[in-house]
């Protein structure tokens, strides 16, 4: 009697369904955790990259302050962070962070400050090896090499 309303097919469909459900949950949660990790990794890397760039700008600023007439400083930075391209906004002055580093997907942004006595030109460049130059007008400029 206990075998009534059951068939081999129902039994099969149910076990497949339950297994699929469990495995989907597993896959989705792994994916989500990887996405979280990726975001964290990008944030940490943007911070490091930003600080290296800030240090180079400060270094160029010191050289300009020491009487430099021609200052060109290359700073080797990765082109992609955790597989994502990024942008650097240089906008010194009050009301905005000195350096804003951003990726778009996932959207992560990190701001880094620097101290300078030579004016630094506002500019947006894409990530990768960058060059800090003392331009003809006496301002420091961040450019792609």
């Amino acid at each position, binding site marked *: 009697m206990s075998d009534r309303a059951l068939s*081999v097919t129902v039994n*099969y469909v149910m076990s*497949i369904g339950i*297994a*699929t459900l469990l*495995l989907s949950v*597993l*896959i989705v949660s*792994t*994916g989500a955790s*990887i996405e979280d*990790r*990726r975001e964290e*990794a990008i944030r*940490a*890397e943007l911070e*490091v*990259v930003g*600080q*290296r760039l800030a*240090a*180079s700008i400060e*270094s*160029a600023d*010191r*050289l300009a302050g*020491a*009487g*430099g*007439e*021609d*200052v*060109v*400083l*290359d*700073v*080797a930075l*990765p082109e992609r*962070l*955790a*597989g994502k391209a990024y942008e650097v906004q240089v906008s010194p002055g009050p009301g905005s962070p000195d350096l804003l580093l951003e990726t778009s997907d996932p959207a992560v942004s990190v701001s880094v400050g620097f101290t300078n006595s030579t004016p630094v030109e506002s500019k947006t460049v894409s990530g990768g090896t960058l060059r800090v130059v003392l331009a003809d007008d006496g301002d420091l400029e961040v450019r792609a090499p």
Partner: protein
Amino acid sequence: MADVRDRAQLILITGLILAVSFVVLTLLLNTVIYTENLASRGVDTGGSEAIEYQTVVVHGLGELVDGENDAEHQSQSEVRERVENGTSGFNETVTASYLERGVVADVSNLSLDDGRLLRQTDPSRAFTNRTGTANWTLATGVEDTRSFVVTVSNPSGSTPGTDAFNVSLVSLGGDRWSVYVYEDGGALELAVQNVSDGSPTLDVCGPISEPARIDLTRGTVNGEPCGALVFGNGISPGAVYDIEFRRGDHIQGTYNLTVNTATAGTSVESQNFETVASGTSPYEVPAIYSAHVDVHYVTADLRYRAEVRIARGEPP
């Protein structure tokens, strides 16, 4: 029911997806490790070394210029030639040591400004001129003076402005800056009168032990900074001035100063000096006032060039 060998596809596919996910995770962690590694590296791409090299050049060539000035060469061309040769020797030595580290560090475009070194070396002689006159002028129409150091003892006269020795800068417009050295109860004291002062400020930067080494251009007394002593305080920048000693017979000691004669209108009152080195009288010899060089510093990541002026002991 399917064949026994066809079972467990779902688990297999899920396992595969998870495996790929973990590989992605590992790669992600790997880039984090790389970045952390980047973070722990030095961030300076050679900026400090470039400034260090420039300091080496300024210090080295400053020593060279002062050394050749001190050697009291007889002609301007001789002192120029010595400094030029010394600079290329210095450059070769330093450049070679930087090249070993893969850095091109170089000095070029040397240009020199002529000057005159005025000095008296006998510590027991009064500050009178060659012929014994107590009130006299050392140089006129001076724009730049450096390393003006007097080492004095045995002052007589206790009232600055009336009977004490003073060294004065007097501008064309009549502005006067004076430093008095006087005696008060047996001790040597210093008074300074800036252009705007009605009377001298007495007893600055004391107590002062004898012999007192007063660096007028750097503003130090016996090596200690003296805030009240600011060379030519009140004489407008760029204005030319005469350098005078007054009551030179009220003090004794030695002095050294270098004036820039490359500027038009500056001249040393030659009749007050011997023109060859003398152990007893004040004398003047050819000297280099300042040197200009271009400093280059080039590495794989950095290019730096600066024009540097070398004139040690100028007023700040």
